[in-house]
């Protein structure tokens, strides 16, 4: 199938389009069992993925489902449907295209299962659900191709792992199914190919012309960036100038909270009233849709946004991308830059705005990396077993199965290729019996084994519950925010339950660019009124704080080794020279530690360059060890590159603090009681099917039957710390927020080479840390003490504390 049929070439010609070489190549290699296309944005990637399908369906009669398209975004599925319908209609092809997402109506979904379209556009979760039905073999019979869009994004998440497990099932049902992956530029194409492949078969990779280098620079501003912080507020006048000079600008931020603050400030200075919108994941769907539509219609000059606009929807004519704050990760920066200019072979234009002086260095390093096409990324490790547990449940919901056959299927997914039979059996046992050392549920097993060895659900009605819990996306506990009025009010978005619980009526916060006043909580909806205050209390959106990638950190350390920095703006250049005069600059293979007094406290600054999450963990561990040594640490603060600790006593011998075994041990103890572990446990417990998702309805009714996953964690930790789920939790926690791996890398890289510089005052490089937000007090009993203080305050305010003074003393008397 290497020649484009006339009907197609005519259509291309009528549109005045050239067929791209990679689109031809995709057609030529249509029979490859798995094929990964790597192409920049605007390269006609989607059409390239569908051409073999369209050509095939144009020539032959096909009954039922021919091609399955999977994208990480519901909106993308709808968008692609529109884009595909155009050529299909214009060429008069006999092809039926439908999408199926969480938004599709129940009747339509039912009909799709009975009479599937030729091309079905869906998401990983909807596919997993389809695979869980007993009629899956009938629905997918005859399936020829699967197209996985934005596979680079999926390959980094559990959603992707779930998808590949679902495909392993489909492949067993349809042995001839061909796989196509469409990816943006990535650092390790082989890893994405391995993710897509049907193991042990290989997956070919096809590279489209990457196009011209992007036109990318730092934004010139009149004001120098501040010493610390992440807002980029100083650059607003210059950003507004750029918005005026371009057609449509995307202004990317690293966190939702920063996007909200920036948007608010931008409007305060937007004297020309340029139409500017905001878009991020915490806004209500109505709000987001409105912004998206305005953008497609070209009504907006700029959109302040976050990762919610990272992925591929074609939002009109964007000709400039501005990144506020250091990009932290070169690959993401390149993908964001690609959002500007969807015309193929025209350079994308982007500007970087460092939020503070240190980020100037990081931005320059990132610019160099982009120029050298040196992308970053960390290998993901073996497939998460909580997702595997869910897959086993899904398989059981679809009907009886054989353990060995399922194990062999699972191993065809790249992430699970090295899964041992023992690991698989442990997951199966967990799904079937809970996998406890105390065999409590033999009578009430979830899965039972027949004498012939096949497994099936003890209670067939359980299939329904399994289906309700499908998916790996975890809504953290979010509450809807509504404008208060008689008829229910406009939905504005969502905030975390934890944040909501810290609000008292009258507090103000930012959401969707407006300042609102908290009025109260009604049936689990946060009610607010509009408020024109100038100083809002900021919504603390969860949004991940990205850590600077290992590769980018290495680049910064290499820059530090230079004699001079002509590439840096003067203030930053002088700052680095001053640091070298006073103390020294951190080096790649050594740990620099500075100790100095400041403001009556002893300070110690550790330059580890291990990224924010790892430095945060390091801060917790070092202070714990300093506490043991009687150094009375009082608190610390961490950034991507350093941790600053303050306390009562001077640090004299830092080397023992970094003893690897000692740190490991402290880590193990600390980890067990850590909130990160509990949060990770909750996620893994839901994904693996130990506990069920709480639906909004259940929370609304405040049902007391649901209890916190923390209790289960504590119970397992106490009575069966080696349980499979505890093991999974540890594995997942170490990958994510705790990031202990990067601490170990740092220790390995520096191998005990510690430079301890003792000074009489703050050093230039440490100075910004004093202004950094997110200080962590060191006090194990902090919560109890704060709680008691708060209780006392509330009682005093309410005038309720009527206990006589002598009774109060009882508080301290042991019972």
């Amino acid at each position, binding site marked *: 199938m290497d020649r484009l049929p006339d009907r197609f070439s005519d259509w291309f010609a009528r549109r005045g389009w050239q067929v791209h070489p990679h689109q031809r190549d995709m057609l030529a290699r249509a029979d490859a069992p798995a094929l990964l296309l790597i192409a920049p944005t605007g390269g006609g990637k989607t059409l390239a993925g569908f051409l073999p399908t369209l050509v095939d369906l144009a020539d032959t009669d096909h009954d039922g489902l021919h091609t399955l398209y999977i994208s990480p975004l519901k909106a993308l599925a709808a968008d692609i449907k529109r884009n595909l319908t155009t050529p299909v209609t214009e060429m008069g092809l006999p092809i039926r295209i439908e999408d199926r997402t969480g938004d599709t109506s129940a009747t339509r979904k039912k009909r799709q299962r009975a009479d599937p379209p030729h091309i079905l556009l869906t998401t990983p979760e909807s596919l997993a659900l389809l695979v869980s039905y007993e009629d899956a073999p009938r629905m997918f019979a005859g399936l020829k191709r699967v197209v996985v869009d934005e596979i680079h994004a999926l390959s980094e998440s559990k959603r992707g792992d779930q998808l590949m497990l679902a495909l392993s099932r489909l492949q067993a049902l349809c042995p001839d199914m061909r796989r196509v992956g469409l990816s943006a530029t990535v650092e390790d194409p082989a890893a994405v190919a391995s993710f897509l492949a049907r193991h042990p078969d290989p997956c070919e990779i096809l590279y489209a012309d990457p196009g011209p280098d992007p036109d990318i620079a730092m934004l010139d501003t009149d004001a120098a960036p501040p010493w610390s912080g992440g807002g980029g507020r100083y650059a607003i006048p210059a950003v507004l100038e750029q918005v005026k000079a371009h057609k449509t600008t995307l202004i990317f931020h690293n966190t939702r909270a920063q996007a909200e603050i920036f948007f608010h400030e931008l409007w305060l200075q937007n004297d020309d009233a340029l139409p500017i919108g905001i878009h991020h994941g915490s806004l209500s769907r109505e709000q987001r849709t409105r912004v998206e539509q305005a953008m497609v219609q070209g009504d907006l000059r700029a959109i302040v946004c976050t990762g919610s606009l990272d992925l591929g929807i074609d939002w009109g004519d964007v000709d400039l991308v501005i990144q506020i704050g250091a990009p932290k990760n070169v690959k993401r920066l390149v993908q964001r830059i690609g959002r500007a200019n969807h015309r193929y072979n025209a350079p994308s234009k982007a500007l970087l705005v460092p939020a503070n002086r240190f980020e100037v260095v990081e931005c320059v390093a990132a610019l160099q990396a982009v120029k050298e096409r040196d992308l970053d990324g960390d290998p993901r490790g073996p497939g998460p077993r909580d997702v595997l547990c869910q897959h086993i449940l899904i398989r059981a919901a679809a009907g009886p199965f054989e353990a060995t056959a399922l194990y062999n299927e699972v191993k065809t997914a790249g992430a699970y290729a090295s899964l041992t039979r023992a690991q698989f059996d442990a997951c199966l046992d967990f799904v079937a019996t809970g996998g406890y050392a105390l065999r*409590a549920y033999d009578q009430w097993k979830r899965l039972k084994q027949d004498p012939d060895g096949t497994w099936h659900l003890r209670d067939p009605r359980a299939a329904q519950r399994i289906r309700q819990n499908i998916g790996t996306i975890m809504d953290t506990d979010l509450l809807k925010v509504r404008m208060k009025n008689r008829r229910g009010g406009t939905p504005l978005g969502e905030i975390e339950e934890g*944040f909501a*619980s810290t609000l008292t009526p009258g507090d103000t916060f930012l959401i969707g660019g407006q300042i609102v006043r908290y009025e109260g909580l009604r049936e689990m909806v946060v009610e607010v009124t509009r408020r024109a205050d100038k100083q809002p209390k900021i919504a603390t959106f969860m949004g991940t704080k990205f850590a600077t990638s290992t590769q980018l950190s290495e680049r910064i350390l290499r820059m530090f080794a230079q004699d001079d920095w002509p590439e840096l703006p003067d203030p930053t250049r002088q700052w680095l020279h001053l640091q070298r005069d006073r103390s020294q600059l951190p080096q790649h293979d050594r740990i620099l530690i500075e100790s100095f007094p400041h403001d009556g406290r002893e300070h110690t600054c550790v330059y580890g360059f291990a990224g924010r999450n790892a430095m945060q963990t390091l801060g917790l561990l070092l202070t714990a060890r300093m506490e043991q040594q009687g150094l009375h640490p009082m608190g610390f603060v961490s950034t991507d590159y350093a941790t600053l600790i303050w306390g009562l006593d001077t640090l004299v011998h830092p080397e023992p603090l970094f003893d690897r075994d000692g740190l490991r041990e402290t880590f193990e103890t600390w980890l067990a009681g850590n909130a990160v572990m509990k949060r990770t446990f909750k996620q893994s417990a839901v994904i693996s099917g130990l506990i069920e998702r709480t639906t909004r309805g259940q929370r609304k009714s405040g049902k007391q039957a649901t209890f916190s996953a923390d209790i*289960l964690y504590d119970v397992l930790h106490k009575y069966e710390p080696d349980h499979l789920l505890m093991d999974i939790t540890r594995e997942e926690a170490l990958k994510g927020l705790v990031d202990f791996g990067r601490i170990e890398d740092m220790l390995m890289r520096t191998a005990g080479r510690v430079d301890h510089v003792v000074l009489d005052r703050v050093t230039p490089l440490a100075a910004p840390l004093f202004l950094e937000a997110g200080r962590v007090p060191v006090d194990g009993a902090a919560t*109890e003490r704060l709680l*008691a203080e708060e*209780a*006392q305050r509330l009682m005093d305010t309410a005038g309720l504390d009527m206990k006589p003074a002598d009774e109060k003393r009882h*508080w301290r008397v042991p019972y």
Partner: protein
Amino acid sequence: MNFVDVILQGVALRALGSGALSWPERRVLIVSDLHLGKSERMARRGGAMLPPYEARDTLLRLDAVLDATDPATVICLGDSLDDNAARAGLDDTEAQWIARMQAGRDWIWIAGNHDPAPSDLGGRALARVGIGPLTFRHIATPAPGEVSGHYHPKARLGVRGKSVSRPCFLHDDRHMILPAFGTYTGGLDWTAAPFAALMGDGACAILTGPRPCAVPLPRRRAA
């Protein structure tokens, strides 16, 4: 062990950090909603297979409270077993453990809405019991002087940007509602409607934990 003193209808009570209530003068200890056998029931009904250690954990904590307070009378305010069939889910070790704790004590099982009072677990089974000016029952009525359970009240406080949630006692000068003592028990938010209806002015919550503390019960704003 820490506690908060409470006067209910002239009786001096102590709300313990563990979630148990003590009446030192009469040597009475009250706990509510043990929900023993909950994990077994959930597995039986085809739901989650939770770590099967919850009865053990609940009994362990109850044993510790008994050790510390040495009461002559123990009152379990209902829902002691998670449902009628949960008795079968208790193994011999657990049943013997309960018998050991009962030795030398007047042990009263109040009937709950999940279970009638267990008949074969020793002690006495009653619908409710009155001692002095107080009545002990599972679900509160508007009558004054009632000590009850059933609702599993839970408090939530914002403390310097951090949200802390704890099972709690709720009381005013007429009623005392105990938190659930069982390990696998959720909670009903202290601002929920039933509490607003039962609790009068000056109502307080006592948050359980290593340092129990009293907090005024937030009033629901008129909607």
